[in-house]
């Protein structure tokens, strides 16, 4: 596809998506209002209106919206490509994802049959009232959840990934140093350190970073003060692209909430708040099986976390709404997943009574990706929107099988390749003692390290996810952690001992680890 054709296709697609959006109508309204202004002259109407939109900041808003569309949706491939190819170009990946989904759905359905609970049903009125009353403190409820089993565990998902094979690729050689020794056996292209150094150039040794150059021993005049000043300027300009570039060096804590909202193009308009309230009323009116699974999961994970337990109630609110949010279905055009859809009992086929099951339906990684956001946003509808946007841009890729460079399969392969290439002795040793490194690091990556790192470190890491619009940094960090603890790991003789060495990441400082691994290790 030649670049010009690709460009015009992109433009057409962005125009199509923004047409009819609320931004579109606001721009129209602004243009109409501007007609009353003296500087708008009939002879140069078009130019004058354009100038007006520029000076009043509306052009910037449009820019941000376009930027957002380009960041989220993949560039179009051939115009004749069928929709499945946009979801996932590789047939065998699509097939694997399809089987995995079938498995989950089967498990869900059998749970429903066993417990005699429908997937979705309308709540009786008195229950609705009760739920509305305790909307802000669902954490105090103690329903009997003992019968609900987790639909699957991270290990199960890893097994599926390990068994992926490309039927067109035959590697007849015996495993050896020249082959890949890890668990992932599909030939996806992953980056090597020189390429990563280029991609993550702003993390280089001679560039200031938050997470390194703002530590107590460094006088703030060296870097921190100036960086904060620039951040404030970026916010004043309200420029999404500039913000994304800026956060590569980390966000000052006081500016982070606004910067992330700017990058994700979330402005919490009245219609957004209304939408959230609508979702909330859907939760009140209908009871979903998945609600109990979410409930159980929050109880097990976030409630027991040193940092997140305080926000337990917010987690219920966000997640219960999320599972009813059919606007999320839009992102499935570029995700390999196709979520199982269900209808409220008795309303089969009626779209307004449709609910969908996100593919990671009880995976506690889901919860852990909401919890850190509670440190930044305490207004429920804004928290919800930020989470939803983070999910449809990034986190969904951790739970579905695809060939995307930020997909979990690629991340696993990137991790293993980095480790095998740069710490071959360690990799070989761990493999020999039955402690394949991916078995340990999988859970970190699939949760984007949430629940493992200290919150301030996690937020610094997620700054870079947003800044680089990619999850590859998770794999790099995982490898860097192994490199950091290599000496101890070389001495262990069992998987359990290896797990123990890597059990506690709460004291790790993320940015120095990344910097050393990428820029200061002799390769």
């Amino acid at each position: 596809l030649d670049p010009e054709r690709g460009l015009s296709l992109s433009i057409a697609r962005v125009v199509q998506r923004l047409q009819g959006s609320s931004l579109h109508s606001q721009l129209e309204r602004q243009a109409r209002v501007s007609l009353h202004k003296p500087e708008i002259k009939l002879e140069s109407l078009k130019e004058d209106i354009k100038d007006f939109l520029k000076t009043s900041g509306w052009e910037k808003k449009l820019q941000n919206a376009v930027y957002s569309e380009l960041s989220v949706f993949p560039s179009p491939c051939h115009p004749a490509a069928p929709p499945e190819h946009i979801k996932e170009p590789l047939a065998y990946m699509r097939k694997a994802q399809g089987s995995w989904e079938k498995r989950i759905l089967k498990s869900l359905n059998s749970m429903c049959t066993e417990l005699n609970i429908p997937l979705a049903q309308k709540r009786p009125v008195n229950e609705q009232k009760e739920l509305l009353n305790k909307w802000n403190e669902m954490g105090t409820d103690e329903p009997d959840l003992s019968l609900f089993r987790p639909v699957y565990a991270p290990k199960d998902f890893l097994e599926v990934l390990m068994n992926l094979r490309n039927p067109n690729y035959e590697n007849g050689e015996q495993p050896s140093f020249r082959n890949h020794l890890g668990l992932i056996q599909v030939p996806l292209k992953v980056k090597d350190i020189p390429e990563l150094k280029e991609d993550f150039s702003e993390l280089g040794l001679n560039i200031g970073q938050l997470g390194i150059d703002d530590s107590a021993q460094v006088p703030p005049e060296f870097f921190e003060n100036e960086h904060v000043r620039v951040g404030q300027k970026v916010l004043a300009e309200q420029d999404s692209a500039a913000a994304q570039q800026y956060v590569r060096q980390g966000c000052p804590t006081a500016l982070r909430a606004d910067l992330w909202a700017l990058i994700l193009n979330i402005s919490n308009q009245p219609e957004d708040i209304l939408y959230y309230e609508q979702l909330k009323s859907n939760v009140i009116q209908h009871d979903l099986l998945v609600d109990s699974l979410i409930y159980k999961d929050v109880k097990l994970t976030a409630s027991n976390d040193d940092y997140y337990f305080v926000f337990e109630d917010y987690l219920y609110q966000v997640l219960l709404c999320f599972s009813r949010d059919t606007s999320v279905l839009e992102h499935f055009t570029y995700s390999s997943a196709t979520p199982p859809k269900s209808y409220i009992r008795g309303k089969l086929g009626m779209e307004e009574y449709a609910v969908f099951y996100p593919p990671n339906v009880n995976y506690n990684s889901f919860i852990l990706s909401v919890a850190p956001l509670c440190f930044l946003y305490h207004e429920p509808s804004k928290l919800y929107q930020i989470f939803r946007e983070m999910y449809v841009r990034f986190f969904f890729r951790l739970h579905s099988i695809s060939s995307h460079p930020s997909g979990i399969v690629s991340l696993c392969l990137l991790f293993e390749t980095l480790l095998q290439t740069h710490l071959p002795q360690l990799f070989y040793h761990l493999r020999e003692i039955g402690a394949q490194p991916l078995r340990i690091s999988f859970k970190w990556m699939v949760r984007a390290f949430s629940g493992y790192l200290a919150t301030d470190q996690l937020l610094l890491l997620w700054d870079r996810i947003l800044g680089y619009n990619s999850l590859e940094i998770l794999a790099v960090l995982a490898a860097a952690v192994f490199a950091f603890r290599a000496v101890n790991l070389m001495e262990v003789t069992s998987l359990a001992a290896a797990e123990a060495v890597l059990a506690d990441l709460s004291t790790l400082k993320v940015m120095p680890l990344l910097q050393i691994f990428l820029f200061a290790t002799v390769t």
Partner: protein
Amino acid sequence: FKIMAGKVKWVTDIEKSVLINNFEKRGWIQVAENEDWNFYWMSVQTIRNVFSVETGYRLSDDQIVNHFPNHYELTRKDLMVKNIKRYRKELEKEGSPLAEKDENGKYIYLDFVPVTFMLPADYNLFVEEFRKNPSSTWIMKPCGKAQGKGIFLINKLSQIKKWSRDSKTSSFVSQSSKEAYVISLYINNPLLIGGKKFDLRLYVLVSTYRPLRCYMYKLGFCRFCTVKYTPSTSELDNMFVHLTNVAIQKHGDDYNHIHGGKWTVSNLRLYLESTRGKEVTNKLFDEIHWIIVQSLKAVAPVMNNDKHCFECYGYDIIIDDKLKPWLIEVNASPSLTSSTANDRILKYNLINDTLNIAVPNGEIPDCKWNKSPPKEVLGNYEVLYDEEMAQSDGTDRDLRSRPGQSTGGKGSRARDSGKPVLTTWK
């Protein structure tokens, strides 16, 4: 002439592993209370006996104890308030700018204790104040108890009729400390996080009161209530909503044994910086340091600055929704029980760092030393206020807003000469 020369001999009334492990790891030797000892970790009852006039106990130069003889001037709720009120009046009389008041008659810099009265002695004064705000809620606390025992909330005068009667009967009978209560204006607009109320527990070590030298432990924590906070009057009786003491929360249905409802102070700072901004967060922490030092200055003149003593206090502070910190009380014997694994580690380290400062090099102490430990032994403590330093060279060895950093700020002779630089201490 000591047989085991060089080994510190210790006694304790408080059989807690965080203490004993620390003594043993220093190779100290346990002895009985009636033997020759160098270090005695006393309970508050023992300290009362040791320093009481009747026993005439004399401590020798190589003996150290962990309480000041009249610590209750700070740690009893009624005496703390009395001393702070007295301190404020003295400053006012001197014409010190620290005692400046605003147009409503409230102290600008020294209003950090909620309005408090002693009962039954101040009953009438209390009623006058109560009637100014009849919809206010007040908290009744017994003077001599701890761990949240005996505390209750009232919002009607009828609920404390008993003290009204008592105040009328005999005005000169001194109340035994067991029956005296303080009644304070209840802070019904606490800062909430996740909808939950919390308070701050900070540890402060005082090695001497004159000159005042105190250290703040960097690893304080927030204690959360398990139930969502509501100022609604129907929940006044639900102590799980209102009292953050772990001893009370522990028995709530939702109490969680893994995290014990606690956050580190650095978590709090991260949350506040992220949601409220850096300046107001720094201001809040500066104010917290300020009120701790002011409370110590208030009692310094009446404290028996016995050179055999040091003390590690547990400060309880509540932050309201305008980010103003309030001093609730000071504990002489902060709990050394651990509710979670993290807690155990924290308290172990707290004792360790405390001993490093109070008993230099872990050797037999000489209480005539200058009580100026080198910076390296502070561990997780930071100098909060060093009166000698402040006066000698005009630079304050006190905390900067950034955690983990203690630099000589730009001099504040200011605080001692009376010109306050309140938003930061620099």
